[in-house]
């Protein structure tokens, strides 16, 4: 069953298409990843789904409610962790969560329990009476996730949850997040531009320049790259290549002193390969494609452009415009 269903969603900022006819479905109880480079339209899409922005056209249904016409019901069904921190640093962890519980209409008799539960779940209970400004970056993020689940939402939105965190805090945060669907029964919609983090998702949509260019499970997406690559070193590469072609009907190429073969399942293919080539084999390694390879194949560029190009300038203009004029 779909808990988010988006069709032909479009958002223009001053003539620039930030989101351009996007459609997708998110199944209940899964982690859905929305991937793409900075400025691809991820945050704009999340803002529309959270009812903070109105779409130019198209429809977005969240938990059965229309984002445009039933925004109050949508807001009650979701929890959001924004890209930028939205905690009050001058309040304690407990106060931040308690006020959240009141804003979301949690019954008075239940408030204390749900707040403490959320703090315990994210391993912050010991620090509940400390001011948030004394927390580390990773703890603040965990606290934001804790706050977002206080009112037991059906869907949790995470916009670049690990941005700006060190690798250790990132891993730590993922451990907590990946437990949420099973233990709290929430569906997670997340964006990231760290491709390796998207491995935790059951379903992924890759967005670039406002359009979805591919979607599927991480494995399905990786298969579109053409499967695993086996790198071989042999005593005679030319002879080995001939054997592979004739006996195993696989395609391969010699590159430098290595021979590489693209196959759908590298691990399953290895025993047969070694049997055929016998003692010719000097070394062998299998490389699985990463999601980054998927993105590279689809768009011809790395997901994190290091240089400022024309597209970046357009994105910056969109952001400036959004800050200035377009608030709904």
């Amino acid at each position, binding site marked *: 069953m779909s808990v988010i269903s988006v069709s032909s969603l479009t958002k223009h900022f001053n003539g620039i298409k930030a989101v351009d006819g996007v459609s997708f479905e998110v199944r209940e109880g899964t982690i859905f990843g929305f991937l793409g480079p900075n400025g691809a339209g991820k945050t704009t899409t999340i803002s529309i789904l959270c009812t903070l922005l109105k779409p130019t056209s198209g429809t977005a249904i969240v938990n059965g409610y229309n984002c445009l016409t039933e925004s109050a019901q949508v*807001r009650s069904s979701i929890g959001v962790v924004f890209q930028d921190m939205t905690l009050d640093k001058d309040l304690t962890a407990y106060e931040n969560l308690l006020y959240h519980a009141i804003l979301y*209409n949690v019954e008075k008799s239940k408030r204390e329990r749900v707040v403490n539960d959320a703090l315990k779940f994210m391993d912050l209970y010991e620090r509940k009476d400390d001011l948030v400004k004394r927390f580390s970056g990773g703890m603040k993020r965990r606290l934001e996730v804790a*706050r977002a689940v206080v009112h037991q939402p059906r869907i949790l939105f995470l916009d670049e949850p690990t941005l700006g965190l060190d690798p250790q805090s990132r891993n730590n945060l993922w451990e907590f997040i990946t437990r949420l669907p099973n233990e709290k029964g929430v569906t997670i919609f997340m964006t990231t531009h760290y491709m390796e983090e998207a491995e935790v998702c059951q379903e992924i949509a890759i967005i670039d320049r406002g359009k979805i260019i591919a979607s599927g499970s991480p494995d399905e997406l990786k298969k579109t790259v053409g499967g695993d690559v086996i790198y071989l070193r042999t005593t005679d590469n030319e002879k080995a290549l001939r054997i592979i072609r004739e006996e195993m009907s696989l395609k391969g190429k010699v590159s430098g002193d290595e021979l590489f073969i693209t196959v759908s399942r590298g691990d399953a293919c290895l025993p047969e390969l070694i049997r055929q080539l016998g003692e010719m084999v000097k070394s062998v390694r299998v490389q699985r494609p990463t999601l980054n390879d998927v993105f590279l194949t689809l768009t011809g560029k790395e997901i994190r452009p290091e240089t400022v190009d024309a597209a970046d300038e357009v994105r910056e203009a969109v952001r400036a415009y959004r800050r200035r004029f377009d608030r709904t």
Partner: protein
Amino acid sequence: MIELRVVYVISAREFKKFLREKSRLISSLARPLLWLFLVGGGLSRIVPTEGNITYLQFFFPGIIGMTILFTSIFSAISIIWDKEFGYMKEMLVAPVSRVSIVVGKAVSGSVVSTIQATVVLFLFPVIGLKLSIPSIFLTIILSFIISFSITSIGILIATFYESFESFSVIMNFIVMPMFFLSGAMYPLKKLPPLFKWIAYLNPLTYGVDALKNVIITTEAGGMGADFPLSFDLAVVAAATALFILLGTMAFNKRI
């Protein structure tokens, strides 16, 4: 439409932070003291007064008005802080109405402002004023009403600014002129006609005048209140309604 729980959350949050920041509390009390004793004390040596009051006694309702003005505007423009530091998003994405957020901000700002005005009010014996207990209560109630109207003006201003670089603009072009042209420092009657008419358009003028009505009880000639208390209250109430409405509209449109 106005959800009390939202007003409660915003007020509780503001109040907790107010009590935690001792420096803010002290510095906000230092300003009226400086103005009353250093500016007022100096001026009282050279400014002739009418009737039976001293310049400091004339200045006193204006100082309470000033306390309300500064505290209310600062509380309201915490909206800019909330926008900059993100907490505003937490409120905007919650299932609450925008008007509740605006009213919550107005109530919380007014409470803080009234507390400060009350602290300043209790300086009255120091400058030789005599106030009855009913007058003290009336002044506190008036302070709350005036605070509410000034906070709603502050909210309207805050919705138009993005960051606190705009802070000095607000101070120099809105807050200070509002103070000088409110009858706090000199009677409106003595102002040149242009300034007098600007002062008549300033909501704070009627707030300060209402305070003069209650606080200046002795014969004060041209230095007493200009309008009846009921008229002052009517203007302040109308201004509050207008600015809450405009503030909510601007808030809806811009945030």
